[in-house]
């Protein structure tokens, strides 16, 4: 995908950065940027949330730049393949990574050889904080609050709680709840949210946790009851309290994760700053 950019937009935006002090080497690189096509690489499969952000964000950056830009998906190995590609790219502001917390935070724990070192090889430019993830119960469980859930788990030998993958936020949530309340819930791991929510709707599992957007399939058909939200309130379900509000104490229930953009570590700071300014004002289309 590529887009023709309005040079006036870039010059207008770039003038705001003109007052920033530059190191001589950086000034040269920044003055010439962008000098060729900007590539945005999304390191997760097409059609997922990350990729759905890639397409409009690729248009966002070019709207303020006068160079053609393109974007592509480079999925695989929990985002590691595409990320490693960006980590090896020339650090000149012409290659941008779009990915999620799993790539930026978790892979160093989950993968033996991710192919990159987040802190040595990449610089985070801008991120969109994650939304609160609802915990949803099947209506037949009778669970409507965290207290109900804990009582249910203590009463029943087996609690079928679905997650969308091993090592995911729901997986960690179950583990943290087990620790605090002395439960022994064994999660059931699906490959992705869609089959997990289908499992809840069909009655294969009693509980699930995932994004509010994907949970619509069960919430709108009354086949799921949200009884808590992982970290942040979800405006659309304002009466559903967060886990901390309901007495869960793990620090993990205060983090939200994020989706965002990164560039190779040695990218000059003035270019990083420009990219960050562009990313954090996606709706400020200049005329």
């Amino acid at each position, binding site marked *: 995908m590529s887009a023709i950019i309005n040079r006036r937009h870039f010059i207008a935006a770039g003038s705001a950065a003109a007052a920033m002090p530059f190191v001589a080497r950086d000034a040269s690189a920044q003055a010439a940027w962008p000098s060729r096509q900007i590539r945005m690489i999304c390191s997760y499969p097409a059609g997922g949330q990350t990729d*759905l952000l890639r397409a409009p964000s690729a248009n966002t950056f070019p709207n303020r730049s006068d160079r053609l830009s393109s974007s592509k998906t480079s999925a695989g190995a929990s985002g590691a393949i595409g990320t490693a590609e960006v980590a090896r790219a020339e650090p000149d502001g012409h290659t941008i990574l779009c990915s999620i917390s799993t790539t930026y*935070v978790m892979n160093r724990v*989950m993968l033996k050889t991710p192919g990159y070192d987040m802190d040595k090889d990449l610089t985070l*430019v*801008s991120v*969109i904080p994650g939304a609160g993830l609802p915990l949803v119960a099947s209506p037949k469980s009778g669970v409507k609050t965290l207290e109900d859930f804990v009582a249910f788990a203590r009463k029943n030998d087996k609690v079928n709680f679905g997650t969308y993958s091993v090592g995911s936020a729901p997986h960690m949530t179950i583990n943290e709840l087990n620790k605090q309340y002395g439960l022994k819930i064994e999660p059931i791991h699906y490959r992705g949210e869609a089959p997990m929510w289908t499992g809840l709707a069909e009655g294969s599992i009693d509980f699930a946790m995932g994004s*509010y*957007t994907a949970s619509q399939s069960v919430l709108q058909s009354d086949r799921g009851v949200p009884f808590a939200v992982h970290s942040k309130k979800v*405006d659309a379900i304002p009466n559903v309290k967060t886990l901390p509000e309901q007495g869960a104490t793990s620090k993990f229930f205060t983090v939200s994760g994020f989706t965002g953009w990164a560039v190779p570590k040695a990218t000059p700071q003035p270019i990083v700053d420009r990219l960050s300014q562009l990313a954090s004002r996606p709706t400020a289309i200049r005329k």
Partner: protein
Amino acid sequence: MKEVLKTFVLEPALGFKETNALYQKELPVWIEAAQALGLQPV
């Protein structure tokens, strides 16, 4: 972009300093929770 953020119930993107402050704040919490799972790296 606005529509995508609204669809996924997401907030606007953060600037550079706020981004890296969020990353530094959340990083140890995620790592501790992940390590608590006891999974072997693949």
